[in-house]
């Protein structure tokens, strides 16, 4: 495994709606590694993903973030995506009237163009998309439906995975990808992630679900608490959190 850091986040602070949500976060993810980010609700996990992706309501107030040496924070959202950053949304929005296949193909060709690759024609795209949909358990009909319009929670997540599989980014941030998925869906996640990871893709997985985390065999686990990385470790940290929860006892004080 190549150990050079693909994602380097240094002392990143982020403000949302006048509140400091992330406070001096530092995190490195080398190429091909899979890191897990855990933390209680409101600890800032989703904020990290959205801030790195360039959401306009998440303002970086200090620090830096690079992807493959490229300054992410200087780029608009689409350039970050074209540089290889993919964020799966916790609640993917609907885009009424836009066929899923058209949306994904347009996105794929925008990314391919940025990479200097030739655009995929409709026939090749559909062949590839249908094959991948079948792998993920997403009905083919969903390609013809408007993006996420009328999709169940699980279908939306599978649709995120479909985009991940087709776009093949360098780093994927999967924000609670398991929520809303059934057992088969979670199995599809672990299979896809293992496959993409073997091709050199890096991952930051935001999840509370130990069984999936174990199956993903993470290289590192980080616990976020009130906007700061409170702990780092391996799978054992995830197992301990699953057993004891996020609330940590205050350090014992010596009594006189």
């Amino acid at each position, binding site marked *: 495994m190549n150990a050079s850091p693909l994602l380097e986040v240094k002392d990143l602070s982020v403000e949302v709606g006048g509140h400091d949500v992330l406070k001096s976060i530092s995190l490195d993810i080398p190429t091909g590694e899979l890191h897990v980010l855990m933390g209680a609700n409101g600890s800032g996990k989703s904020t990290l993903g959205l801030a790195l992706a360039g959401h306009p309501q998440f303002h970086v107030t200090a620090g830096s973030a690079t992807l493959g040496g490229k300054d992410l924070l200087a780029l608009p959202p689409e350039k970050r995506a074209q540089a290889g950053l993919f964020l799966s949304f916790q609640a*993917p929005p609907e*885009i*009424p*009237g836009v*066929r899923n296949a058209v949306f994904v193909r347009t996105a794929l060709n*925008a990314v391919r163009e940025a990479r200097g690759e030739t655009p995929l024609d409709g026939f090749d795209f559909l062949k590839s998309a249908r094959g991948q949909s079948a792998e993920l358990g997403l009905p083919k009909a969903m390609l013809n439906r408007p993006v996420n319009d009328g999709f169940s929670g699980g279908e939306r997540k599978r649709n995120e995975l479909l985009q991940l599989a087709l776009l093949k980014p360098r780093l994927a941030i999967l924000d609670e990808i398991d929520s809303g998925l059934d057992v088969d869906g979670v199995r599809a996640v672990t299979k896809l992630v293992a496959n993409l990871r073997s091709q050199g893709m890096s991952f930051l997985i935001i999840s509370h679900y130990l069984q999936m985390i174990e199956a993903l065999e993470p290289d590192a686990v980080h616990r976020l608490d009130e906007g700061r990385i409170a702990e780092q470790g391996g799978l054992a940290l995830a197992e301990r959190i699953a057993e004891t929860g996020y609330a940590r006892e205050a350090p014992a004080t010596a009594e006189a």
Partner: protein
Amino acid sequence: MNATNEAGLPIMAARERLAVMGWIPPRSEYFHHVPPPAADVWLGEAEGAASAAAPAADARDGWQLDIADDASRARVDVQWLDAADPAQRKTLFSDTRAPGDSHQDRFVWAHRALCQHGLRLQVGSGHAAAADAAAAPVRLALHRSALARVEAPTLIVDVAPGTQCVLMETHDSGSVDALAQNLQIHVRVGRGARMQHLRVVTPQADSRMAHQIHVDVAGHGRYDQILIGNGSSYHQQRTELTLDSADAQAYTGAALCISGQNTLDQQVEALHGAERTLSDMQTLMLGSGRARGAVNIMTRMGRGVRDARTVQMMRGIPTGGGQPRITLRPHMEICHDAVEAEHGATWGSLPEDALFYARQRGLSEQTARALIVQGMLRAQLAHVLDDDMDLIALLGLEQYLETAVATHLAAETRKAGAAA
């Protein structure tokens, strides 16, 4: 529709009648948000337009009719009529409602005073009518290219009982600058028939357009209208839906774009006169720059219209810089208790979450906006076509939507560039 002798009034009589009534006053309920140009513009009497209404050289008066296939051709009777000839004029306007003295009917009077030619289509007519109920839809494409600077074309469409008809109607200004066009369309949908009326009206910026569509739907009949349109110097789209027979239905969906200093005034009026009638009228208007738009949707339900239903939905969305003014006005007059009525008028913005989502997938902001705007418009139209997005593609509406959105967003970009 009530046939009266007045429907086919000779040109001079119509002109005199209009002179007596006067033009639309500035504070008119329907028209004051987007006031129309004065009567002389529509009568060809405005300065510089004295010879504008010269007789059209083409007996077909600028219409080009394409009938999709031989089977459809056998089921359509086509009449090109000369309104200057008293007998043909009488035929042209037979069975059409005579105009009254309402403000909106002033356009009908102005039309009668100028109209020189008309086209009548009888769909599902003759010996084939009996078999029409089981037959495939009759598919027609009608394109109008303006011929004169001031013109008053007429189109009459009769859809025979049980017949399915798809009519695609498109327009261009030809080589005419500052066009003033007062188009009157009369549609009759027979018992159990269905007409899908797809209209694309995207005039040049300097055009003055007034299109009025008068629709009568018989029992168990259904009329669907979808409209793609943009603003111009003056642009009025008015549709009157008369549902006087039980179980008659009418749906309208409009995707409208206004930019720059253009205007667009859409008026839809549903008149329910029988039980279990249904009207569903939805409009999405996108605006930018200093454009002015108005959407007036009116439902009138008379006594005894038990279990009638009406839906009015209108949305206005600013899509770029500037301060467009879009006025959304729902109206309802209901004189029966056992009916359902639903209405909504919202002023919103483009969905920021969808915009960010698309950009996160690698689409430029411009592409993402175009995709989302086009999707919103498409969804608006698909509703009328039973959410059948395939039908939109099949009917070739995609290219019109793409062009309308590209033109609209380009106008914003030009404006922003000029401001910078």
